[in-house]
């Protein structure tokens, strides 16, 4: 075949392949910041409108948080390099325990006060080669102070799910990893699971 006559076919084929790839990696139906707004509104509604409920806040917000946060990814990232040496059963157990711990830790520190004001900034694509990741910068105005909070989200089907929260420059995942990795280095997966169980058994200190 003459290379010159082949060229238009090659270009057309490339264009078709690119179009097909774009169709497969289509944008989710919901924009990342819309998901975040829904998540924040839903969690705040539960926190502020259910003040008379007898069930602890951690239990009430859990379904909403599990909908918007990817706790499996969060647990894997928080445990760090040791995760690959966990058995599937240990991974499942650690995910359940760590989810409980994270939700309880932050829910039990919540104090009913003025409703926080949240300003959403434009979503950032941190790496052009990974369009499935976004950073959602926000400013939270609470009790007269402003806090910078960045949500890191990843595409999950036709929506987005949070996998890390950076408060005033400090990553939640990095914070937990710096605590859990040394425990793994000392005693492996059983030590990490035991540590999570021990932490959950203790009463919460506000």
């Amino acid at each position, binding site marked *: 075949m003459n290379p010159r006559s082949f060229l238009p076919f090659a270009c057309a084929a490339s264009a078709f392949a690119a179009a097909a790839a774009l169709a497969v990696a289509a944008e989710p139906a919901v924009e990342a910041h819309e998901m975040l707004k829904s998540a924040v509104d839903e969690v705040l509604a539960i926190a502020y409108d259910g003040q008379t409920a007898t069930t602890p806040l951690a239990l009430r917000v859990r379904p909403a948080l599990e909908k918007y946060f990817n706790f499996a990814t969060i647990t*894997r990232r928080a445990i760090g390099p040791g*995760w690959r040496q966990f058995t599937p059963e240990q991974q499942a157990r650690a995910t359940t325990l760590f989810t409980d711990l994270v939700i309880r830790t932050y829910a039990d520190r919540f104090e009913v006060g003025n409703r926080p004001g949240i300003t959403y900034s434009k979503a950032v694509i941190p790496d052009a080669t990974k369009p499935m990741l976004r950073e959602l910068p926000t400013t939270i105005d609470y009790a007269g102070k402003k806090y910078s909070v960045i949500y890191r989200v990843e595409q999950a089907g036709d929506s987005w799910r949070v996998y890390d929260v950076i408060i005033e420059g400090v*990553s939640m995942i990095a914070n937990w990893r710096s605590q859990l*990795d040394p425990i793994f280095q000392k005693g492996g997966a059983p030590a990490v699971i035991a540590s999570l169980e021990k932490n959950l058994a203790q009463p919460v200190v506000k």
Partner: protein
Amino acid sequence: MKQSKLELIVGVFVLAGIAAVAYLALKIGAGTLVGADTYMLKARFTNSGGLNPGSNVIVSGVPVGRVEKVTLNPADYSSVVEFTVRKDVKLPADSIASIKTTGLIGDKFLALAPGGDAQFLAAGALITDTESTVDLESLISRFAFGNVDQKPKPTDSK
């Protein structure tokens, strides 16, 4: 004859001295020529203040590389740090890069916390899970001198 032999010995000695000085200069300074067994990675920060070319790259407290270049991405005004890591140090794809300080006012360095992902970062990959420099001065001033937006605390009306 004796004279030329002596000159030759002195010449060799001087050359050896120059070579030793050059080696030390490379080892202590840039180090790129002697540290060829490395690969390049990048990390994106919202603020990389204090991190400079030559800063250490550390995993678990052990130096494994050095910062080569710090540039500004004009598209979103983020800072992109290029650094080298020893080839034998494979980093999982979900590793976190943080800018830390030696002590309270010491030098900045790049700390890498390896993640749990089964895939590893390839040469040239960009780490986006990062922690920028924590601006201690502004944090201290905010808590020491208050915030311009701070509302007055409710007075005890008991």
